[in-house]
């Protein structure tokens, strides 16, 4: 009797969850379905299926978004920034964790405290400074991402270092390796799980970032979000094209999510909980 009750309970929770899930993906459903409609078809109604499924919107949006170019820019900027963040933050996390001096503790504190500063509080002088140095370009942007991204990354690496025994260091030093070799050959491979987390968190952030690239990059070097902003402004009230463009812009993320779903959820969970 009690068992039955519990089973019924679970089934109703499951049904409720599934309904909520449907509601959750409804915006994506509406986006995709209407991207296949003509302008007139959207005007008659947005809730049902298209009268006729047309693909022309996607072709037009793909060309107007210069999608391959924006995709390339996004991949380049995200890839390089995240690579640099991982390399330099892991080195710093290691150095700060192994050095027990007061200075080391103070510096760690500064890195963590810097996380409190919101982007808007440094944005204006930052853009002015980089503008005067002629660094408002992709290279400057990547350096900025190192500056903004290193705090959290160092914090995570620093935490992970507690799990790496000091005897590792000593054994390698006795074998005649210098600090640099020691780090890259022995320590960094041991930090791989946290590197995955750091990588995922930074990819999600940089891939989707809009405001900073909008202040730094010209339209010719636009990343996907930046290009999307220009594109959308051009097509207000032309939902069939705007929605096709939005669908295209989301596809790379969905592909990535499909392949690395487990790591992404685990990485985000770890990044937030620590």
């Amino acid at each position, binding site marked *: 009797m009690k068992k039955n009750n519990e089973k019924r309970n679970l089934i109703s929770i499951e049904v409720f969850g599934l309904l909520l899930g449907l509601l959750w993906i409804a915006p994506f459903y509406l986006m995709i379905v209407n991207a296949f409609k003509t302008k007139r078809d959207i005007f008659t109604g947005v809730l049902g299926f298209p009268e006729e499924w047309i693909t022309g919107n996607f072709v037009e949006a793909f060309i107007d978004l210069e999608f391959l170019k924006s995709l390339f820019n996004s991949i380049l900027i995200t890839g390089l920034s995240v690579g640099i963040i991982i390399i330099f933050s892991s080195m710093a996390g290691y150095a700060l964790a192994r050095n027990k001096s007061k200075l080391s503790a103070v510096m760690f504190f500064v890195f963590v405290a810097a996380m409190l500063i919101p982007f*808007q509080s440094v944005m204006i002088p930052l853009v002015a400074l980089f503008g005067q140095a002629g660094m408002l370009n992709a290279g400057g942007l990547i350096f900025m991402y190192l*500056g903004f991204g290193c705090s959290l990354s160092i914090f995570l690496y620093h935490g992970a270092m507690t799990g790496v025994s000091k005897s590792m260091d000593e054994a390698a030093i006795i074998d005649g390796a210098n600090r640099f070799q020691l780090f890259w050959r022995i320590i960094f491979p041991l930090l791989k799980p946290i590197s995955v987390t750091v990588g995922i968190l930074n990819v999600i952030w940089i891939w989707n970032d809009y405001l900073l690239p909008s202040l730094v990059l010209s339209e010719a070097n636009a990343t996907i979000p930046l290009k999307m902003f220009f594109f959308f402004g051009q097509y207000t009230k032309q939902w069939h094209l705007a929605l096709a463009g939005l669908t295209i812009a989301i596809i790379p993320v969905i592909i990535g999510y499909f392949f690395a779903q487990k790591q992404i959820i685990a990485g985000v969970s770890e990044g937030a909980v620590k």
Partner: protein
Amino acid sequence: MSNRTLSFWLFLTPVVLGLGIVVVIPFLYGLVYSFTDWNGLRAESFIGLENYIRLFQEDEFMQAVWFTTKFAFVGVLLLNLFGLGLALIVTRNIKSSNLLRTVFFMPNLIGGLILGFIWQFIFISVFGDISGLTGIEGFNGWLSTANTGFWGIVILTCWQMAGYIMIIYIAYLENIPKDLIEAAKIDGASPFQRFKNITFPLVAPAFTISMFLTLSMSFKIYDQNLSLTNGGPADQTQMVAMEIVNTAFSDNDMAYAQAKAVIFFLIVSVVALTQVYYNKKREVEM
């Protein structure tokens, strides 16, 4: 300098330069500039507190602060409610648990800018159609009044970020020993008693983290604000982050915008530090 100290500094130089040039120096410069008539290129003179006095008298800025505070309050409440709710659903022994986690989390991976554009379509066209079909006037013109625009941003943010908060609660919920719940069941504790006396206290640290995260996320929202309402109608749904960006890069009033940015920093850090302090204290007491 010993070999050790040298390598310590070599390992730290890149990030020290990065944080220094990108965050620390601009932050300090910004503090100084906020007391001048800086125009983005040079500052002619110190004008003391003039920028700060001006911003407290500016209706548009104070309106943005109030709107953002209201938003943060509602956002923190709803995000944690939804996040915990979703987590409680997907940690039950149901078949679709993994599928649902994937679905609820998905909007997080997509940028606020793109999501805001999608919801613009929903609030304008889809809601318009729903209003036509049901005859309910309330669905019409969601982005054309300040009040419904507010709820528009709230709905968008909850939909986007609840899955993220869910992940945090899941991490804690799954750490609760199963036999503890079983033992309580055998002792005849009701589901509510089990939640109140076992689940809730053990999940308390997740509240600290989630409150801190949602609060600072809510205060710093920009992309969603830009793409969904762009501050409209008549700047009534403009949040602080956007107000600062516009003052700087549309009005070109750099020093004044920087003073607002300093106030923004103060609000964000005071709120965040208070939150952490109180939550830590509460956890210890429990």
